[in-house]
């Protein structure tokens, strides 16, 4: 089996008396798409917030490419190679599309404020590189023609793509996608599925949270199922489809 890029050991996250995520352990291998599914309120997004350092878990550890990243700040984790999009699109509305992507590249560059004020070679070279690389990512998400428009002027589906592009621009080892198909119609969802597969073929490793079962079953190599914060099943899409516990969690149990 190929290298494990992301691993969690028994992650538990509590909010007061509520245990939002309980003892969740997952593994993501290189060039793999892993899905995390579960009914509303199963703790999927909370789990992502733990992974990206927004929350520090009460118990458990997160390992990114062999390094313990538990308790690190989000910006440190981004630098180490894990970025994400957001379920409710959160673009930088005060920037152009190009600048949004350029901000994604921020964590890979080094020019300091002093470099920029003095206009040093490092500043000039990095600015040039940043813009060229940003255009490359805009080509990937198909938004290069709108590069100088404001980010929020895009239609909904395109905004989602831009947000994924911004995460890609940090060139992450692990890309986390939080319900990328939310609010999309059938055709858009199909395009998105193909796009996510293309990303894997480009070499990205992806964890996907999604409600749209067709998308999940279509693109994921393996799936983990959460219910009330607990991990109730894991396996290939076919195994998950037949798993009685999963069916019960989604459809309710027979008496």
């Amino acid at each position: 089996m190929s290298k494990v890029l992301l691993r969690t050991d028994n992650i538990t996250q509590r909010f007061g008396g509520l245990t939002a995520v309980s003892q969740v352990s997952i593994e993501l291998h290189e060039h793999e798409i892993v899905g995390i599914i579960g009914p509303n309120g199963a703790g999927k997004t909370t789990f992502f917030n733990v992974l990206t350092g927004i929350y520090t878990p009460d118990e458990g550890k997160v390992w990114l490419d062999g390094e313990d990243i538990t308790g690190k700040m989000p910006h440190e984790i981004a630098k180490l190679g894990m970025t994400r999009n957001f379920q409710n699109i959160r673009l930088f509305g005060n920037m152009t599309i190009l600048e949004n992507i350029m901000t994604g590249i921020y964590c890979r560059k080094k020019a300091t404020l002093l470099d920029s004020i003095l206009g040093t070679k490092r500043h000039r070279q990095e600015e040039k590189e940043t813009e060229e690389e940003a255009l490359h990512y805009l080509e990937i998400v198909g938004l290069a023609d709108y590069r100088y428009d404001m980010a929020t002027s895009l239609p909904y589906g395109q905004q989602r793509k831009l947000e994924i592009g911004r995460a890609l621009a940090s060139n992450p080892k692990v890309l986390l996608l939080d319900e990328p198909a939310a609010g999309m119609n059938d055709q858009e969802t199909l395009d998105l599925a193909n796009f996510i597969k293309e990303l894997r073929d480009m070499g990205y490793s992806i964890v996907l949270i999604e409600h749209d079962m067709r998308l999940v079953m279509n693109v994921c190599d393996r799936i983990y199922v959460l219910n009330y914060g607990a991990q109730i099943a894991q396996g290939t899409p076919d195994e998950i489809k037949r798993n009685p516990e999963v069916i019960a969690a989604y459809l309710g149990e027979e008496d």
Partner: protein
Amino acid sequence: MLSKLENAIAKHQPQVIAAFFVLALAFPMIMSGSSYVMNISVMALTYVILTLSLNLVTGYLGTTNLGQAAFFGVGAYTSAILATKLGLPFLLTLPLAAVMAGLVGMLLGFITLRVSGRYLSIVTLGFCEIARLIELNWYDLTNGPLGIMNIPAPKIFGFTFSNLMSKYYLVLVLVILVVIVVSRMTQSRTGRAISAIKSDELVADVMGINVKKTKILVFVVASAIAGLAGGFYAHYISFIDPTSFNYDKSIQIMSMAILGGMGSIPGSIIGAIILTVLPELLRDFVLLRQVLYGVVIVAMVLFRPTGLLGSVNFKHILQRLRFHEMKAKEGTAHE
């Protein structure tokens, strides 16, 4: 109509900047050195620096700072004390004024990391008041309410900036310096981090931006710039006391930034000039001057909340124009 004008300015930015530069250079000659006009001009340019500094924290970073006058005061007192008590030359007192204000700005930066929104505004307001009280009560250092007198005129390499025209050119050089710093700062890797934080702190963090560090950096630079203005002001006016750096002054700077437009360098320049010159024109109606600032803020919030130029980004406009031209050319080439 307005957008056509914006497009024209965006296309000819170097020419427009050059024209304003020539105008600024020739201005004392045009006014044949009238001391009344020159005094107002020097003050207007000092306010330009202050407004630009506030614009960094409030316009670009999005932190409502009601205490910017405190840094103006820290800079003024630093250079005044160093010049009168230690006899340090202007070439040292001016940068030290900026450094001192920058350090105090770092302190405020650390405090403000813990609060946000209106609470933060209140903290900055209190900070301004604390600075004033220290200036008023630390008698040995600041001479209290009597203020510091006989601050020497700026002097560089044996040349004394004694007449108004030379002071005008001196502050003009400082303005140009500050404009270069602010524009390079905002159009850089750091500048994008600042915009990202303004837009969404959490997302900025998740995208790899060290939010705390960047915020403090902005506070330090903005405060240092205000301190620079203070350092110049002390040597220019030759007498300072705590009343020059109180809450009213902060509000005055804030109204200039609001009028000109948040996050716009030309906006800050225009806002500061208008609100320095207009009260002078209204000198015959003293009471109206007090009302003016309030009216300006209310009117702007109602009719143009982004300020005169706050919603106009000439860089973006130019990028779009060029891109459309390029696309149009490609289109005709294919035919």
